[in-house]
């Protein structure tokens, strides 16, 4: 039984291949799998590269932190898996130079630090930075410009840290795991871990943060992460990249979204091509199936035979597709070199297997239903040609396809909202396209009384084949829509993203500006033609109670929460919300004066501290107690590099408190000397340079943009395939009709023109509808998924229409050129 099906199935593959029946469906699968594997292999690599870049922000692939010393057993376990380890210890400590004292964020590191990323240093404050592969030698300290400035010392001088004296050796510019808050008040310094004991700063009960950093082979990291998930010690917290820098985390998340969208679009277009090819395959095999039924083949035999044929087909096409995809992503990977120190992680076997699996799933989802419906063909069809199998409802076909896509998509795009919006957009587009296509087909039928003979026949053809024409328009529309999405829309969305850091975006922050110096500093910046991003008040306060319950760092397990409670918050007040914030719960207060005392809190920090809407916060600000409820939670786009605050008060609550001011400005690279002048003229202010981090975010954006452009090529190929497949559906009929027309005496030019008229109409309708659908989807995606501003691109319509008309016209006529050149009799004989 099985052997017989196998023989029949294989025989069918051979014969159908020979007869060219499988060419279209093969190429469709091949393109789909090639596109998918190129995309997912590349996305996989790019993602791992991006995350590697992200890991640099943790100075490790994985880390565990604790308020207590981390047991050596953990480090041994990691090394047992072949991983590298390093230890760091950070604390806030007073560093002294002569009379001057400065509270400093001090980090002690061992010789292996950092495991990922590099420490940047400079030889003088505000000099160009360079990366080094070393740490401060025992007995030395690397201090940032702010610390030097605060202590009024130069390199080479000695400072006191606890019980030891350390020589300040270098200017610390950036250490990879610098920590989240740019505006943390304290200057920073790093020293050697070996000196810590001598400082006598670490006592039982002193507030320190121990970290064990781990890096190495991915599998081992995953294994270790698994082990650490079950750590009993609640004081230990496992850190991933996400915990590192919020602005880069946001950028990475968005990068995932963009790549995911590109991949998903490719899947959809390829799926449509496969669905069309499968439909045609099924139609052309109706007679075969009927004759076989008549000759005694059972439904099981036919099903088995077709399944085997599809399986063989899918295997051949998938393997070829993956091979092609592999080559393609290899080329693509070239564009990424230099991204992470030149070495892009090699494609993972899992991604290769995943691509093949996706290929099969998409094939099953889009092709199996129409093809398997062949088994239902009534054998009576051999006597009555008009009998077709009970048609598989297109709705069922698409439901199955959708299920397959849903099975695939979250994994591809890794974002449920994106998947839902994109799929929802496509489904809506299908529905709208179907209705609109049907209506326009009807309307076009009316139009034909007013046009010449060629156009009349062309329009009549569109109307007569109303159902097929509608299906064609829907398929073409979906194809064009996907192409528009991946070109114009995607470009616009990425531009919107990149627009968040425009070339002149502030890359320097100035904090601790005394109220009296706000004016002079403004004048200074204006005098140097440095554009500021606004001046904001900043008040420091300690969170002392939530809902009248006193809070202590020890109330929290989470070290981040402990740190937040331990330190002073930077509070601000504002009437209007920053434009890049989004209220996620509650409401922002009315801008008009006289709002009740209330706070607005960033949603992430609220979650960390377990604060909800309506909770009353008590802050101690310079000895005074301020109490007010939280009336809104906000999402903050940290990757915008705007000045943002975790906690903002309504006007009226904080104005009496001692405030300093914060501003930001853009400093062109060639004017770095202005910084030295600024620091000299305004000795009390602190300058924070974020140009380096900003460059990292920009790099991520650029790479994503490049990658997406490449993916577009595959989507384009799949889109072209959709065109061919959609047109082939009616090609035989068109060829026969043209032959008939010609045998009735119509000149070839007239036949050609009428065909062209039909193609133009179909392309036009599909193009316009596709542009509208793409515009709507883009608008929804921009607002709800990507959170970027998007203005509907009016080019969608002309380009969509042009793509439709040119594409359908060119491919349609090319497909029929042979039939038009052939003598009518031979066409009729071949096709009848």
């Amino acid at each position, binding site marked *: *039984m099985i052997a*017989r099906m196998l*023989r*029949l199935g294989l*025989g069918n593959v051979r*014969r*159908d291949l*020979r*007869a060219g*029946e499988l060419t279209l469906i093969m190429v469709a699968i091949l393109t789909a799998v090639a596109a998918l594997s190129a995309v997912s292999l590349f996305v996989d690599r790019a993602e791992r590269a991006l995350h590697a870049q992200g890991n640099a922000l943790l100075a490790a692939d994985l880390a565990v932190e604790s308020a207590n010393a981390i047991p050596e057993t953990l480090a041994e376990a990691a090394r047992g898996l072949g991983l590298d380890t390093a230890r760091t210890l950070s604390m806030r400590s007073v560093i002294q130079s002569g009379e001057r004292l400065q509270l400093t964020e001090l980090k002690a590191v061992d010789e292996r630090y950092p495991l990922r990323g590099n420490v940047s240093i400079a030889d003088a404050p505000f000099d160009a930075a360079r990366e080094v592969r070393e740490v401060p030698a025992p007995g030395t300290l690397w201090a940032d410009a702010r610390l030097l400035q605060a202590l009024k010392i130069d390199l080479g001088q000695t400072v006191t840290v606890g019980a030891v004296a350390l020589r300040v050796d270098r200017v610390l510019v950036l250490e990879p795991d610098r920590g989240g808050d740019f505006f943390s008040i304290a200057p920073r310094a790093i020293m050697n871990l070996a000196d810590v004991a001598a400082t006598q700063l670490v006592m039982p009960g002193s507030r320190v943060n121990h970290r064990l950093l781990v890096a190495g082979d991915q599998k081992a990291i995953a294994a270790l992460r698994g082990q650490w998930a079950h750590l009993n010690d609640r004081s230990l917290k496992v850190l991933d990249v996400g915990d590192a820098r919020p602005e880069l985390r946001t950028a990475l998340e968005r990068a995932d979204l963009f790549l995911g969208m590109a991949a998903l679009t490719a899947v959809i277009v390829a799926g449509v091509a496969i669905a069309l090819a499968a439909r045609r395959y099924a139609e052309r095999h109706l*007679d*075969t199936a009927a*004759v*076989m*039924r*008549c*000759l*005694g*083949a*059972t*439904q*099981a*035999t036919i099903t088995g035979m077709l399944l085997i044929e599809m399986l063989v087909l899918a295997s051949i096409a998938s393997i070829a597709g993956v091979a092609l995809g592999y080559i393609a992503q290899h080329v693509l990977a070239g564009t990424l070199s230099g991204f992470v120190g030149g070495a892009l992680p090699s494609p993972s076997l899992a991604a290769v297997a995943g691509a093949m699996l996706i290929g099969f799933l998409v094939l099953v989802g889009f092709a199996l239903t129409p093809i398997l419906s062949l088994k239902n063909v*009534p*054998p*009576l069809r*051999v*006597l*009555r040609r008009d009998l077709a199998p009970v048609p598989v409802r297109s709705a069922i076909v698409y439901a199955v396809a959708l299920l397959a896509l849903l099975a695939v998509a979250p994994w591809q795009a890794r974002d449920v909202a994106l998947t839902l919006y994109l799929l929802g957009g496509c489904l809506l587009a299908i529905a709208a396209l179907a209705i609109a296509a049907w209506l326009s087909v009807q309307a076009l039928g009316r139009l034909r009384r007013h046009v010449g003979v060629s156009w009349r026949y062309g329009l009549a053809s569109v109307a007569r084949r109303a159902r097929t024409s509608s299906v064609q328009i829907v398929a073409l529309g979906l194809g064009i829509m996907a192409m528009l999405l991946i070109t114009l829309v995607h470009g616009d969305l990425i531009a919107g993203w990149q627009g968040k850091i425009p070339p002149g975006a502030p890359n320097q922050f100035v904090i601790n500006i005394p109220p009296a110096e706000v004016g002079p500093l403004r004048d200074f910046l204006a005098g140097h033609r440095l554009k500021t991003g606004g001046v904001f008040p900043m008040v420091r306060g300690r969170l002392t109670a939530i809902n009248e319950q006193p809070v202590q760092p020890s109330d929290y397990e989470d070290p981040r929460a402990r740190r937040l409670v331990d330190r002073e918050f930077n509070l601000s007040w504002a009437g209007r919300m920053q434009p890049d914030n989004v209220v996620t719960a509650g409401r922002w207060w009315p801008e008009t004066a006289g709002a009740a005392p209330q706070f607005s809190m960033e949603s992430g920090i609220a979650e960390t501290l377990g604060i909800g809407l309506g909770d009353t916060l008590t802050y101690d600000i310079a000895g005074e107690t301020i109490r007010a409820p939280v009336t809104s939670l906000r999402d903050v786009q940290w990757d915008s590099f705007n000045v943002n605050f975790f906690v903002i008060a309504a006007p009226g609550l904080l104005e009496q408190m001692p405030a300093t001011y914060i501003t930001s400005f853009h400093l062109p690279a060639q004017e770095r000397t202005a910084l030295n002048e600024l620091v000299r003229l305004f000795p009390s202010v602190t300058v924070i340079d974020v140009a380096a981090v900003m460059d990292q975010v920009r790099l991520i954006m650029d790479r994503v943009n490049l990658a997406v452009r490449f993916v577009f090529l595959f989507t384009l190929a799949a889109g072209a395939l959709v065109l061919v497949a959609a047109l082939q559906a009616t090609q035989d009929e068109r060829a026969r009709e043209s032959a008939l027309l010609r045998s009735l005496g119509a000149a070839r030019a007239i036949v050609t023109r009428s065909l062209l008229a039909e193609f133009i109409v179909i392309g036009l309708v599909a193009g316009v509808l596709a542009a509208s659908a793409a515009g709507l989807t883009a608008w929804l995606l921009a607002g709800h998924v990507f959170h970027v501003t998007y203005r509907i691109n009016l080019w969608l319509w002309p380009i969509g229409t042009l793509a439709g008309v040119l594409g359908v016209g060119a491919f349609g006529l090319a497909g029929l050129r042979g039939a038009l050149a052939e003598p009518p009799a031979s066409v009729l*004989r*071949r096709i009848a």
Partner: protein
Amino acid sequence: MVEAIDKPIILADALGKTVRSPSGDLTILDDISFLIHPSEAVAVVGVSGSGKSTLLSLLAGLDTPTRGRVLLDGVDLNSLDEDGRAALRARRVGFVFQNFQLLHSMTARENVMLPLELAGRADAAVQAEAILARVGLEERTDHYPNQLSGGEQQRVAIARAFVTRPRILFADEPTGNLDATSGALIADLLFSLREEAGTTLVLVTHDMKLATRCERRITLTAGRMLTSP
């Protein structure tokens, strides 16, 4: 032969077929009853639209009657589902059609091999070659249907019908698409092959000359039997 007369190979019992059409129910066949004995050749004749093809499709189990029943080689077709009827066809029935119904993606040989393969026979290729030689197409075994003339295509179809040595052969106007000469050739071939194998033949035709070569005729007028056998 004596035993066969006692046990008919085809029995039609009060067969009727009514279809729903936009203009109300349409009775295509009504109250058709007859017996056909093994190795008999029976012609079904009647004007166009009288229901000949419909009758054939009911007898062969390609379609189901709305009334009455068909016993094929002792098996009540009503008791079988679509797959059961297909299995029965695979073992006992062959077909020849007016429009040949060859599969266009298959060569002549592959077309003839198909029923053998469906029945799971191992020697399909050898048997197909042999019977193609018998119908005079040994030179054309690797040709595709569209490379063959109508008469040649019908010869391939006849070879395909006989290759499984079916007990019953249904033929629906096998010469209807052919000119007189090739029509006569096909008819000769059909009758001599059935003679050799002792196959029961049910032949639908409106060619009276062909009908007279059968031992018996069933005449249909507007879906009813004129002559009782």
